[in-house]
């Protein structure tokens, strides 16, 4: 009995030393997470990285970061907006030593990102689309987003010239402020060309529903819509359906011109490469990233797709003129008097909401000329 005990203690000690030796050995080997000086950055996507849409736009930004010196980029795709994203971030932090995280989907923010940020106070969590509020949210959280509705306004102008039926269509996922802002800007752009234009909106209910998106596009076309655009994660199905049915389309998130060589007019695209490389430079330089980063065409956070062949010279000139004003920072999309589609005045005469106005980020109305409702 005693013998056996002693033996077992010895073997336990042996095992422990061996394990210790192994891990010491392991520390010197190339598969250790990263060298101390490398900045480990984690990107989390809600869908596949190559979806011609939202996630591809972010992955293109991450690809630009990868080219920078002294960084190690981790990526995980198809992470649902549930407790799963917390697990993903935990593993990036604990196993790979990530100190800068980019959870890129809107639904990650509250409560998942906030919870993780409270837990890991020393790390930076930069979230796309959320609205960071001083005092309410932890200081190590930042949120960034672009005024892509500027580009949607320009798409609206181009669509307004291209439409013969004066009916535009918008396939949207969910009625959240960012989506509503795109719908409104697109409609305002089109109605600056011809005030009789209307935009019919279909909400599909989720960010990626290929069959429903195709069905929505077909329903819009059946109602006489001849230009569609969208705000869903992957516009591929909508752009392809529009092209098949021979109507015009303006893109979103990334450039889809390749999918619709005849009908693609222009599109509103992200330029995350600039945002991400700027952030990483700040962190590498020891500067704390700002909590709120916003910008549009002027700041280079969004861009427009090159015009398609079907865009008339008149449309080009008009859109380019407004784009010039956006670049100069002098154009205001939301200025009173502005009515919503129920006839209420939402912006009083004389009031102007510039792009940076946080009031616009809680938008809960659809502008006059939009056929659709939020609930």
């Amino acid at each position, binding site marked *: 009995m005693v013998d056996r005990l002693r033996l077992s203690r010895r073997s336990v000690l042996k095992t422990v030393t061996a394990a210790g030796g192994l891990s010491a050995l392991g520390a010197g080997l190339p598969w250790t997470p990263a060298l101390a000086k490398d900045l480990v950055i984690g990107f989390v996507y809600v869908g596949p990285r190559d*979806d011609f849409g939202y996630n591809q736009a972010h992955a293109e930004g991450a690809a630009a970061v990868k080219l920078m010196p002294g960084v190690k980029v981790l990526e995980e795709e198809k992470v649902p907006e549930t407790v799963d994203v917390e697990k993903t971030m935990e593993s990036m932090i604990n196993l790979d030593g990530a100190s800068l995280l980019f959870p890129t989907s809107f639904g990650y923010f509250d409560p998942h990102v906030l919870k993780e940020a409270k837990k890991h106070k020393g790390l930076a969590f930069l979230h796309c689309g959320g609205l960071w509020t001083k005092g309410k949210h932890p200081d190590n959280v930042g949120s960034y987003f672009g005024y892509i509705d500027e580009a949607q306004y320009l798409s609206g102008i181009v669509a307004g010239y291209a439409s013969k039926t004066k009916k535009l269509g918008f396939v949207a996922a969910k009625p959240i402020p960012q989506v509503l802002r795109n719908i409104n800007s697109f409609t305002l752009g089109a109605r600056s060309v011809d005030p009789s234009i209307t935009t019919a909106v279909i909400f599909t209910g989720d960010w990626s529903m290929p069959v429903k998106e195709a069905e929505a596009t077909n329903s819009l076309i059946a109602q006489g819509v001849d230009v569609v655009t969208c705000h869903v994660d992957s516009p591929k199905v909508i752009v392809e359906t529009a092209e098949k049915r021979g109507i015009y389309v303006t893109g979103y998130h990334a450039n889809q011109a390749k999918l619709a060589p005849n009908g693609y007019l222009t599109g509103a695209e992200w330029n995350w490469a600039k945002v991400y490389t700027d952030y990483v430079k700040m962190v590498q330089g020891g500067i704390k990233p700002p909590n709120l980063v916003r910008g549009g065409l002027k700041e280079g956070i969004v861009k427009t797709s090159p015009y398609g062949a079907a865009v008339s010279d008149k449309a080009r000139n008009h859109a380019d003129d407004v784009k010039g004003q956006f670049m100069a920072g002098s154009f205001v999309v939301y200025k009173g008097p502005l009515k919503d589609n129920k006839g209420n005045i939402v912006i009083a005469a004389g009031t102007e909401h510039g792009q940076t106005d946080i009031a616009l980020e809680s938008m809960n109305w659809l502008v006059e000329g939009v056929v*659709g409702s939020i609930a």
Partner: protein
Amino acid sequence: MDETSPGWWGVPLAVLAGAIRVSTPFLFVSLGECLTEKSGRINLGLEGTLVMGAMSGYAVAYGTGSPWLGVLVAGLAGTGFGILHAAVCSLERVNDIAVGIALMLLGTGLAFFLGKPYIQPQAPQLPSIDFGWWSTSQQVRSALQVNALFLIGAVLAPLLVWGLRNTRWGMVLRIVGESAEAARAMGYPVNRVRLFATAAGGFLAGVGGSFLSLHYPGSWNERLSSGQGITAVALVIFARWDPVLCFWASLLFGGAGALGPALQAVGVTQGYYLFNAAPYVLTLAIMIATSSARHRLAGAPAELSVTR
């Protein structure tokens, strides 16, 4: 109202068009499942088979340039999954439902893994046949752009009913599904019959998947199926194991799914979440209306593990 817009008439038209466009995957999967269940086994893995069919069909169509070859390969991939299911289930004390769930996860996982490079490229699409040539209305014409696979499915449904009722093979299949003991006593190889039935069911489900990626909506991505395979398996119970009823049930589901977008397009936008839930509400209502506590579901094969 100008002539470009059919207005309210657009709603029934869009529902009809949607029924034809959206129903095909439901139809093929439910016909396949019907065949499998008639042999006394449930294959819940058809969701995975559907996704795998969509992916492999798209990949092959893209690689070879022939969409019909894609359909064939999708069917063969489905057959493979069917054989796997039948082979595992032929072992002693294996639960067919558990195997089905495992294969569903395997199929979707494998399709996502192998399908990565095919999310971006565009594959050639299956052609559709124009049945609306007589109409001057552009809406009617586009609604009647019917795909050949839909027609094949529509012909297949009565053919299966006839075959199950009147042919020797159909009767053997039904005997195996009703009473394995009796079939064994008569000298029929129960496991082999079930193998064929499950493989054929897998083939049809794979073809259904290829419709998703090669015709409507017509591209491969990971959210493509979003549960249509599972819905179609449930449709079989709803359709009382009758292939022709499967056809009507698929049309009903397709049409109900088109109702939400169609109503929003004409401006009925209040409560669109409820319209989007229409197919499920409809199923519940019909199930409640037709079920009875006193007898077994009419038409259910007696050997099914859920009814036994």
